[in-house]
């Protein structure tokens, strides 16, 4: 959280306290101003003004806070600190670094009234200018580079609000050397001093020139996602599913293996142990594209379910603002929000304490608007400094009872273009990732096919369609099987079921906990599919030649398809397997 705004305006006093909602009297404030509440100085935000009473949502526990205590206004909206030091850090919902809080509080519990700057103010960074004195710069333009982590060069930019659109200014001084984030590294002729640290209000999108159609996939290394339901860099996706269906594992897999430059992971109202797992795992895991530790490209925002509910409402905004900042540097950023339902519930809780008229299922009437505002901040953009960058937003949804007709899922589906439906039945039979292939969809498929066709294989789209057709046919056949049993089907249909079984077990399932299978490059995804197709073609040839179905199903080579996933040298393995399958099946007739 931003710390500079200490210019206190008129003070007020607390009139009433009810959970996270505090009403103050005589406070001179604007909407969304950050205020400090009570003798302990708890952070809060103005959410309603009516006459001389101001309603505040407080980001910390309010036990023991009494009417009559003072309320101080900072006069500034809720903002985040932006600058080097954001990566490899874990924050709470209002951008307080959790490791600093632990130090300051001297306790493993989160105490109240302790504040900390979002980025370390004392650290010195090696600043390398990329402009010279006399150069003209516009808003958002890069003036220099700082090596933030081994993976990421942090670009120091002219703050977008320092100049007007189209306005330029001349650099009058710029220096290389070690600086803290608050020291001036460059000066413009209109008097603007540029520091590495910027502030930006979280509820406001950072400016861009235009939103473009995304045409590059965010490759995730997950077969069912890359192969059947791809998301674009700059795309939006929702992962709804009942509890235990694997939302969090899917989100973690994306955070680990997606080929974005920067990952922002927002743990919104979820389990503490899950966040701890991320904190433990990520520094040790390798980024598959650079080989550096994963944390070097990651910023975590953890507001677990037992942390104050108002901070849960803000954590999603904190995350997307940080994401936009890196997008402005020209990076591809992927933001995972787990879970947006908890965020919606936080809105509901605050709304009901305000006694607002509830909409559907008690959610506030502005739920849909808030959700779409959030997802619209994702996209593939031309930035104000001329670079191109993207923010992909992937939101988990936790529908009550796994019922997708509830308001959060429905309102999300109206906005996002990729839908990965998690299925409790699949999870129950340990089919992971338990993404239902009949219900899920991706509207990016067509615009991403050219990329896959040029990077992987020119029949990528064709092969995908083949797999989808088989799976569709299986779904229909299964209905009959439910009634009469598999053996009552004609032999060719039984064989289709067998092929579909390989698709399900080898291709659609992927073991996130296996060191090799956990990440599957698109080439391997493709080769696996072609192996299954080889089996399909050869098996049908054999069937036509009069080989009984039992013999075809009973071959030794075909079950090896299930082991492709765990092979490191898959190219060789697949080659051999394909010829084995061909040979064995042809030997039957």
């Amino acid at each position, binding site marked *: 959280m931003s710390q500079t705004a200490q210019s206190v305006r008129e003070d007020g006093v607390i009139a009433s306290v*009810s959970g996270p909602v505090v009403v103050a009297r005589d406070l001179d404030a604007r909407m969304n101003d950050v205020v400090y509440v009570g003798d302990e100085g708890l952070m809060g935000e103005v959410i309603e003004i009516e006459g001389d009473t101001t309603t505040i949502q407080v980001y910390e526990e*309010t036990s023991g806070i009494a009417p009559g205590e003072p309320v101080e206004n900072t006069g500034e909206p809720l903002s985040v600190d932006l600058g080097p030091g954001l990566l490899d850090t874990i924050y709470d919902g209002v951008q307080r670094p959790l490791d600093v809080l632990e130090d300051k509080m001297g306790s*493993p519990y989160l105490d109240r009234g302790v504040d900390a700057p979002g980025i370390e103010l004392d650290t010195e960074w090696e600043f390398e200018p990329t402009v010279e004195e006399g150069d003209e710069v516009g808003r958002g333009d890069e003036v220099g580079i700082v090596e933030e982590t081994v993976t990421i060069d942090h670009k120091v930019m002219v703050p977008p609000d320092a100049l007007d659109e189209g306005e330029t200014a001349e650099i009058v001084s710029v220096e290389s050397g070690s600086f803290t984030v608050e020291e001036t590294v460059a000066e413009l002729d209109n008097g603007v001093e540029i520091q590495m640290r910027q502030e930006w209000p979280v509820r406001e999108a950072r400016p861009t020139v235009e939103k473009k159609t995304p045409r590059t996939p965010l490759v995730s290394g997950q077969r069912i996602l890359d192969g059947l339901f791809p998301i674009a860099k700059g795309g939006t996706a929702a992962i709804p599913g009942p509890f*235990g269906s694997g939302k969090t594992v899917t989100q973690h897999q994306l955070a680990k293996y997606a080929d974005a430059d920067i990952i922002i992971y927002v743990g919104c109202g979820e389990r503490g142990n899950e966040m*701890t797992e991320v904190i433990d795992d990520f520094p040790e895991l390798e980024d598959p594209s650079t080989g550096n530790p994963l944390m070097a490209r990651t910023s975590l925002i953890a507001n677990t379910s037992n942390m104050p509910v108002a901070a849960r409402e803000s954590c999603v905004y904190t995350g997307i603002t940080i994401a936009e900042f890196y997008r402005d540097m020209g990076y591809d950023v992927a933001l995972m929000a787990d879970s947006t339902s908890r965020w919606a519930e936080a809105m509901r809780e605050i709304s009901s304490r305000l006694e607002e008229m509830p909409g559907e299922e008690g959610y506030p009437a502005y739920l849909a608007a808030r959700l779409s505002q959030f997802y619209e901040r994702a996209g593939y953009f031309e930035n104000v400094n001329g670079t191109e960058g993207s923010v992909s937003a992937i939101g988990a949804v936790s529908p009550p009872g796994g019922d997708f007709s509830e308001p959060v899922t429905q309102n999300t589906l109206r906005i996002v273009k990729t839908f990965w439906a998690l299925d409790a039945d699949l999870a129950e*039979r340990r089919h992971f990732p338990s993404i239902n292939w009949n219900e899920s969809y991706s509207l990016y498929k067509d615009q991403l096919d050219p990329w896959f066709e040029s990077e992987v294989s020119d029949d990528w789209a064709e092969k995908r369609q083949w797999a989808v057709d088989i799976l569709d046919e299986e779904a229909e056949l299964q209905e009959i099987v439910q009634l*009469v049993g598999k053996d009552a089907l004609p032999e060719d249909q039984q064989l289709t079921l067998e092929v579909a079984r390989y698709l399900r077990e080898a291709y659609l399932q992927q073991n996130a906990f296996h060191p090799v299978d956990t990440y599957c490059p698109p080439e391997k995804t493709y080769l696996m599919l072609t192996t299954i197709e080889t089996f399909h073609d050869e098996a049908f040839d054999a069937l036509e030649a009069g080989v009984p179905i039992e013999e075809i199903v009973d071959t030794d080579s075909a079950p090896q398809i299930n082991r492709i996933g765990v092979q490191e040298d898959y190219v060789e393995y697949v080659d051999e397997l394909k010829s084995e399958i061909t040979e064995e099946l042809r030997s039957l007739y």
Partner: protein
Amino acid sequence: MKEYQTITEISGPLVFAEVDEAIGYDEIVEIETAQGETLRGQVLESSDGVVAIQVFEGTSGIDQHASVRFLGETMKMPVTEDLLGRVLDGSGRPIDGGPDIVPEERQDIVGAAINPYSREYPEEFIETGVSAIDGMNTLVRGQKLPIFSSSGQPHSELAMQIARQASVPEEEDGEGEGSEFAVIFGAMGITAEEANEFMEDFERTGALERSVVFMNLADDPAVERTVTPRMVLTTAEYLAFEKDYHVLVILTDMTNYCEALREIGAAREEVPGRRGYPGYMYTDLAQLYERAGRIQGREGSVTQIPILTMPGDDDTHPIPDLTGYITEGQIYVDPDLNSQGLQPPVNVLPSLSRLMDDGIGEGLTREDHADVSDQMYAAYAEGEDLRDLVNIVGREALSERDNKYLDFADRFEAEFIDQGFETNRALEETLDIGWELLSMLPKEELNRVDEEFIETYYHEDASDADNTEAEATAD
């Protein structure tokens, strides 16, 4: 301390009083009735001049002349190691006739959230001696794993079995000398009979001396139920993180707790969420469940097994639903399996332990653990599916492969799950039974097990039984 005789409204569990000083939110209140009875309550809403108080013991006997005292502090739990072996009421007062409790500390019952950065990831296995849990849904230290049950099911027996048998395999390095096991039992609105069963079992097995029991019975005030689990967890945190105990917390029945929340919500005329439960129930439950865990640099751990009875055996009801989203898995007690006489009647298919993957395997349990459990899940699920089909077409219409799966499902229930409430099975034994069952299936079907483990553990003779028979007849 100022006394007020300014009660303006009494409604359900709530009392409204006028005050002329600042009263803190959540502060503790004492109300003395005309009969001289002292009732305790808590400030729910505090505004200029008026406070809303929820009274734990219920509001009967309070009139407008009752006097109200504000104690100037939030609710505290007196904690000490001497609590072990004691039986307390739902508000933490001894009811076992023993001596008064001399607290070492008084801790705020609304525990602060553990900083996720300070947590230690739970990955040490707790052996419960129950195959359905150890083998298929392993519990680890610091986990919260609820039992989803319904009325009339033997969830209490299962909980007792776990409390009795749970043990933590000692660390080999010999450092962990002081980590003892303790059970804290929090009863919310259970019947006196159920309570007696628990107490008898505690006394019979001598478990009481390493336990603390909090009893809020069905006829105790409902509002008190909202503080009982907080008392329990405050005690648990103290024993775990300051006295190095491995604490197992059993909370029963969370459904009664949620009913109490709803009652208070209704009395306050709040906008209700789903099925009348308050919109903040997720946050409220999370504040309880998230108090399980481990902390870096502290020896002990808090592991929670909350029990809840699902109204109508429906897991989409808000109580199990919200619980499932917070806890790290769930164990289902299944009425069908119960009526078949399985003990414990755990249905492993919908059950899940999210922390299992990190708590098992080489060096933790056994190298083949994950593969065996995966394969058994898949095989049992397939057998279950086939049972539906058998009902329609009969067993003869199914292939030999299908029949093997059906047999597998039957034997899995009879031999693996149905172990009895008194049997304590070591993990080795659980896994060995698992291999015995898996060996009914042909090797090629074991596609989730590493080939190496098949080599080591697969019982060749078991699966070849029919084959050899077949061969023999062929000869």
